[in-house]
């Protein structure tokens, strides 16, 4: 069984066609990257697969469950980090973690093994307000909150945008060790150099997937060539 199956997804917002027929599969334990510029439709895919919005056409399964019929069950099984920093800046690091643990009915201690490597890095700032953390730390806290209920599929929408190069490298190292635990990860990024860290990538542009492949060498040149070929 695949972790994610998207079949011919279409979605329009008023006059904008965000998705024009998107199909892909993510295997269990795979790190799958959606690579493309802003407006390519990456966020729309995330929102459909996490049951936040409904597709106009097409079907999809997350963790083997139908995104329309079984949306309540899916919500207990996925971890989601939306594009923007989506924690409470006026709550402290500890308060954020406790709150997100509570909404899944778990405690930090229950799944400590999974989040420990990340949690140890932010633990020194436990009493600091989340809004006062540096970009890299915020992102680690958000990842920690998204993992707290031990999800089987992790959705990361542009987790590294606006974060400095070092924090980005560290973030991808964390994802690599998460992969070891068997979790499936769908991640999007506008940074071409990060694509190399994925098992497979989908190159996206204007609501279409141009190609699905293992990350090629000289990705940017390859992407440009694809874009020119597709007009």
């Amino acid at each position, binding site marked *: 069984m695949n972790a994610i199956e998207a079949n011919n997804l279409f979605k329009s917002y008023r006059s904008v066609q965000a998705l024009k027929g998107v199909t892909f599969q993510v295997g269990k334990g795979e790190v799958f990257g959606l690579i493309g510029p802003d407006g390519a439709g990456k966020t729309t895919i995330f929102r459909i697969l996490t049951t936040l919005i409904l597709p106009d056409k097409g079907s999809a399964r997350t963790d083997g469950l139908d995104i329309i019929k079984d949306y309540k069950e899916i919500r207990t099984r996925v971890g989601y980090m939306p594009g923007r920093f989506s924690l409470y800046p006026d709550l402290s690091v500890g308060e954020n973690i406790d709150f997100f643990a509570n909404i899944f009915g778990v405690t930090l201690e229950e799944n400590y093994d999974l989040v420990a490597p990340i949690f140890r890095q932010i633990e020194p700032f436990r009493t600091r307000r989340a809004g006062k953390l540096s970009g890299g730390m915020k992102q680690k806290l958000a990842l920690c909150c998204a993992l707290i209920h031990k999800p089987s599929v992790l959705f990361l929408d542009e987790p590294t945008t*606006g*974060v400095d*190069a*070092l924090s980005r490298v560290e973030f991808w190292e964390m994802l690599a060790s998460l992969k070891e635990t068997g979790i499936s990860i769908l991640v999007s990024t506008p940074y071409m*150099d990060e694509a190399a860290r994925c098992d497979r990538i989908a190159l996206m542009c204007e609501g279409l997937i141009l190609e699905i492949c293992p990350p090629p060498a000289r990705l940017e040149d390859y992407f440009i060539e694809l874009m020119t070929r597709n007009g």
Partner: protein
Amino acid sequence: MDNVIEVRNLTKRFGSFTAVDAISFEVPKGEIFGFLGANGAGKTTAIRMLCGLSFPTEGSGTVAGFDIMTQGEQIKRHIGYMSQRFSLYGDLTVFENMQLFGGIYGMSEKQIAARAAELLEKVQFSGHRNDLVGSLPLGWKQKLAFLVATVHNPEIVFLDEPTGGVDPITRRQFWTMIREAASSGTTIFVTTHYMDEAGYCNRVSIMMDGRIKALDTPSVLMKEYKAESMNEVFVKLCR
């Protein structure tokens, strides 16, 4: 050589916290200068001082020939600024945006019209002069934002993460525009998180904890840190 930016021991403290700690450097005319650093390293604070938006606690310097301590207003007239967060007014047309920013810098209507025609011609965008900026694709918005930042022929343009989220083709076009502007004598001061873009700069400085840890051409830095890419240089330096 003619230096457009020259700073000595520039320092900014907020209470007991030193955001920028005695940095010194100069940028010659027409250079593309990459200003890199981790989040919270003090880049934004340093740029604010260079743009005349905040006073240094200590140190001295000139930007476009004006003293950053006493001539902040003149500095503002001679620089251009573009950031990813704020680029252009989406509810105004391309030309209206240029009119606005040209007007802010005291250009006459005639000068603005001529300059706008020239700039739009250069990027083959004259046909979209009266389009609403909000209706344009992101890539074009970013390119136009750069043109608008240079509408008054500034001596220096500050670009704060100008290419965030744009597609690779636009990114290359954007850098072509930057190089053209630099070769015609405009100095470019740019921050970015894309390390491959750092490779396009003439010289690069890397800030950490308020200090400049490294400053040289990308190729020298890569040799010095035995790295294959600027990304590696950055990670090795900051870790």
